């Protein structure tokens, strides 16, 4: 039986892992390559690297780090951040990324997902959506969660999947950093709308939050988190043992 995946997310800026609370107040936690090796040997099923660098110098450092990670870590690696063209896909895929996630790039350029899916296959194209409730409706936000695009999120995610995205990362801005659990209602809405894997992101604060996620939202394929793993508040081994105990299929 296919297992539910546990995915640590590493936000990388200027060669270091950082994690903000509600996307603000970044602080350093560790070296990306070392952290990736650590997670891989401690049971992570996959890793997500987000490049949150703005400068071209930083982008070069990021691809160097990516290459070094792919030389040492042999689990699937999804890369996102600053992906706005198929050239960006090529840049990170050639450094060892397996999947590429697009966010603002897909909002700005509607042909990006279909073009990338045609070139690299749908399994390689991940739509990463930052979503927040606005006046009772789910809206897609752009530019790292700063700009409300006014686009209704569930329909938009479904259109991205129809256009060729093979996986969805749903990041709830409402629950991100709050550590009170994943956004179950938002996840149910998205899982009900697409038939590709959905990765839940935003809100995990403790082991029980993952158990609740997989029990309440059977369509969720994976749980993603950052700071609770980076700061050792939840160990992946303990988390997976608890999932196993709760009869949630998990790779141990």
């Amino acid at each position: 039986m296919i297992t539910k995946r546990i995915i640590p997310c590493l936000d990388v800026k200027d060669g270091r892992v950082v994690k903000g609370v509600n996307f603000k107040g970044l602080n350093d936690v560790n070296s990306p390559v070392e952290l990736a090796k650590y997670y891989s040997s401690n049971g992570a099923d996959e890793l997500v690297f987000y490049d949150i660098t703005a400068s071209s110098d930083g982008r070069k450092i990021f691809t160097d780090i990516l290459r070094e990670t792919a030389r040492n870590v042999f689990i699937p690696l999804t890369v996102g951040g600053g992906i706005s063209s198929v050239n960006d896909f090529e840049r990170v895929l050639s450094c060892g990324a397996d999947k590429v996630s697009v966010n603002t790039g897909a909002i700005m350029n509607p042909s990006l997902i279909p073009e990338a899916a045609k070139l690299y296959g749908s399994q390689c194209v991940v739509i990463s959506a930052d979503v927040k409730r606005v006046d009772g409706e789910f809206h897609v936000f752009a530019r790292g969660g700063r700009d409300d695009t006014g686009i209704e999120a569930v329909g938009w995610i479904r259109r991205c999947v129809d256009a060729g995205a093979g996986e969805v990362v749903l990041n709830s801005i409402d629950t991100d950093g709050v550590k009170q659990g994943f956004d179950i209602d938002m996840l149910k809405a998205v899982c009900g709308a697409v038939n590709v894997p959905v990765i839940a992101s935003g809100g995990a604060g403790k082991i029980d939050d993952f158990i609740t996620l997989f029990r309440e939202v059977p369509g969720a394929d994976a749980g993603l988190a950052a700071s609770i793993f980076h700061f050792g508040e939840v160990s992946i081994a303990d988390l997976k043992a608890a999932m196993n105990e709760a009869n949630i299929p998990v790779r141990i």
Partner: protein
Amino acid sequence: MIAIVNYGVGNLFSLASSLSAIGQTAVVTSNPDDLAKADRIILPGVGAFGDAAQKLSSSGLAKPLISEAHNGKPILGICLGMQLLFTKSYEFGEFDGLNLIPGEVRPIRDVIPGGLKIPQMGWNALHFTNPSGIYATTHEGEYVYFVHSYAAFCPPEYITATTNYGADLTASVQNGNIYGVQYHPEKSGNAGLEILRSFCGVKA
């Protein structure tokens, strides 16, 4: 030396890295001479069957690969590279494969229950059906990483392991010196490295 066949399909950086991590010398090559010189050959691949079969053939690598196979050299196909070892595929049409293992490649949607997501993407368990040298140090139930919408359908004597995704799907195959894995050993952590290490140890 291990030759990783480069016919313009997919990214070979991780595969080459995984082989160097287990102490093997690997070259990513599109030169038929390297296939002749190599001790073993790995045929990788992602994407669509028809396009890949066409690229493999037009690169001039299909014929030398088939002749090395007939010479008894160990060959490992990974993911789409495994599917190419079969007689035929029905992915977006009907295409001929290398015919090194009798069988065909068809959509998993034909055999799995409705409602399951396609592709199968993630870690699933191996269930052994026939012994294979690539599993010398791998235990029953080990998890490996799959990404696929199509699977091989072939006589059971060639299947060395299955995986269950609503139905038993072919996870790996062997026909003498020809080996194939549907999953990605280069993305399956230590379990995958062990499988690659065992392939590097099988006798020609």
